[in-house]
């Protein structure tokens, strides 16, 4: 990984890998990003959360110089980023939205061209990264024949052609199977251990919760919450669970007498409960004592998810009255929501 003896890294210079101050971007009348401040330290993994249209992707595009900010400063690895004339700062890598490649070229050829745009890579490096993302056997195939997961892996391979000191990834695990998503998490953790700062956006609150040290939550172009995961957990409201019993009416009546538990009847049966863990334990024990059998108890919304919905104003599935449905972002809804809320 990065050379620990080198004093050119932000960690050695005791500087943040990414420092964003007062970043503003409008598209015509649309306020996409509105005064965002953000810091990512070396070795830190920061999750960027927000509903569709919150401005996450536009913010990331500005970090790469794809979109010119109206106002604000960005420092990448300690260097002020000059959109007008500078190439991408050495050591910064990543991708925004799904990685795009040339479909008429093979995966290997795509990597060779991207390496060339960087001024080249050492011999054998392309084989290494192909192996790392498990694309060696498919490297000779045209990228147009790849599945979305394979294109995602190819994008990651392109990111890894050089040692990143700052990694900016937009939904890196989207399109990947569970094994691929797990590998990504392992990769990011490994890079962070070696000092790479990581900023990644995700719709998946559980993924962020399991990986990040810090979280920034965006809404309507602004950062509405920023801090460590531990602090977020401490400030988060009670988690939500879905409960199915042998007698939901009696269970609901029992919850009404217990002020520490809030229960809402679902349209398709079951109860949605909001309660602290200790209060929930007591409630379940009380159900048993009352002769009500617990048939199923599932975590509907973690504390972080609850906090996310509270901060962003997004509607959760439980608030829509159906404990069976889960929020599932899609590309199509992405574009629509961007238009509606930005």
């Amino acid at each position, binding site marked *: *990984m*990065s*050379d620990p003896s080198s004093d050119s890294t932000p960690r050695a210079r005791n500087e943040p890998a990414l420092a964003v101050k007062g970043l503003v971007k409008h*598209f*015509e*009348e*649309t306020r*996409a990003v509105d005064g965002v401040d953000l810091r990512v330290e070396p070795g830190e993994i920061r999750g960027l959360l927000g509903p569709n249209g919150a401005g996450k992707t*536009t913010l990331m*595009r500005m970090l*790469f*110089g*794809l*979109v*010119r900010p109206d106002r604000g400063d960005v420092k990448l690895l300690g260097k002020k980023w000059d959109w007008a*004339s500078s*190439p*991408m*700062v*050495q*050591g910064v*890598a*990543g*991708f*925004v*939205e799904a990685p*795009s*490649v*040339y479909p008429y*070229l093979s995966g290997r*050829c795509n990597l060779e*061209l991207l390496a060339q*745009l*960087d001024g*080249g*890579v*050492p011999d054998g490096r392309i084989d*290494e990264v192909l*192996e*790392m*993302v*498990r694309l060696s056997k498919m490297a000779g195939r045209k990228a147009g024949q790849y599945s979305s997961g394979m294109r995602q892996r190819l994008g990651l391979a392109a990111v*890894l*052609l*050089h*040692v*990143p*000191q700052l990694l900016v990834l937009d939904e890196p695990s989207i399109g990947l199977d569970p094994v*691929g998503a*797990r*590998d*990504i998490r*392992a*990769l990011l953790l*490994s*890079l962070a*251990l070696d000092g790479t700062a990581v900023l990644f956006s995700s719709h998946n609150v559980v993924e962020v919760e399991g990986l990040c040290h810090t979280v920034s939550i965006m809404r309507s172009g602004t950062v509405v919450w920023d801090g460590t995961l531990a602090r977020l957990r401490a400030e988060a409201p009670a988690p939500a669970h879905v409960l199915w019993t042998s007698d939901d009416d009696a269970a609901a009546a029992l919850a009404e007498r217990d002020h520490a538990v809030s229960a809402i009847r679902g349209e398709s049966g079951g109860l949605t409960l909001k309660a602290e863990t200790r209060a929930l334990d007591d409630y379940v024990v009380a159900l048993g004592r009352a002769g009500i059998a617990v048939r199923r108890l599932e975590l509907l919304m973690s504390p972080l998810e609850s906090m996310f919905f509270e901060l962003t104003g997004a509607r959760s599935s439980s608030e829509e009255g159906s404990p069976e449905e889960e929020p599932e972002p899609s590309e199509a809804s992405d574009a629509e929501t*961007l*238009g509606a809320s*930005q």
Partner: protein
Amino acid sequence: MSAAAGTVGAAPLPVARRGGGVWDVYRVEARKLSSQLLVRIALAVCVLGPFLFLAVIKTQATLPADTLFGRWLHTSGFALPFVMLGFAGEAGFFVLVSVVAGDMFASEDRYGTWQTVLTRGCRRQDVFIGKTLVAATYSLLVVLLLAVSSLVSGLILIGSQPVIGLAGELLSPDRALSLTLLSWSTAILPVLAFTSLGLLFSIATRSGVIGMLAPVVIGGMMALFSILGFRTLMLTTAFDAWHALLIRSPDPGPFVQGSIVSIAYIAFCLSLGWRLVGRRDFAGSVPAARRVDRTARIRAGVLAVAAVLVLGAASYRPSPIDSSSLQYSVTSTLVNLMHVKQQLVDGPVVIKGKTFAPGAPIHLRPSCVRGGQEGPSRGPGNDWVCTMEIGPQGNPFQFEIDVDAKGNGCFTASMDSLLVGPLSIYDYRGHTVINPLYEFDGCVDTP
């Protein structure tokens, strides 16, 4: 990717080595281009097109006589490069050049790869310059391949016989070769100007289809304007500059003017193109940014139409075709051709029964007017008639030549076979050759 973390931790990764420049972008774009089927087909057309064209012509009795040098395709291998240059200047260059230039920037929009390219180690200006240079290289390659292929095809399939030039004189193989190369070199700057137009439309509209079609449509409109006499600032006029190198008094003026106009187009298109690329927000699926896209396309279209109209208005110039210029050029060309025919038959030339012996001076008194008019006439048209007189004023010997004068200053003159004999004649060796007086081409010259 399960091994990723382990591999990352175990193996020393290369330290970030960012620093791609124009040359790196150039190599990348050249490699991308060489892998595209359409580009390969276009280059194959450049290489094989002239050969196949001449091979087909060789099997046929009729010749493309409506094109300069077309009537000499069976006679000299040097005619083909000039015929191909004429065809290419009329439409071929626009189409071949637009295939690459019109899609050079728009393809990144189509594949969504702008962000892939711009998040690597090169600057926007490097990408812009690299792509522009590759498009220019391809365009130069088109010119080179067409020129070499048509020259080689002509020499292989027909031979290196002398060819009759636009002033009616016989050009030796050496002179024909140098004029061929010189003529093709005059196409370089206007071809690069059309390349720049394609690049600009590719950038402004973000559509490969529009990028490819726009230069072709604009080229067609310019050709139309030229016919109507609006020639000075039209790029298509620059493609005719080689005509002036083959007339009796070679004139570099049209080449210089064409070059200045081409350079102005190149400078305008590239500076505007860079302005658009340099300031563009690559905002992906943000709807507001897409609305800007549509606005930009409409604006580009309106600007293009307005620009063509303004350029057209500023380009008007009276036609170089008038009684005086035609009289001078038709007469001098005819006299030269009479000398050529005398050499071919190794004897006198007979026109309407009058004999013109070799070595004897030929003094013709021309009078060119448009059909039905009296006195000096002007403008292109196929109704010109040139009357040639020889002998005493009171009782002259006369014959008439029908002249079809084009807007670009060139003409095709033809005489009745009863006056000058049939299309095919026998030379002094008994070989069948084309009668040079039956029909001949030329371009107006300044007396």
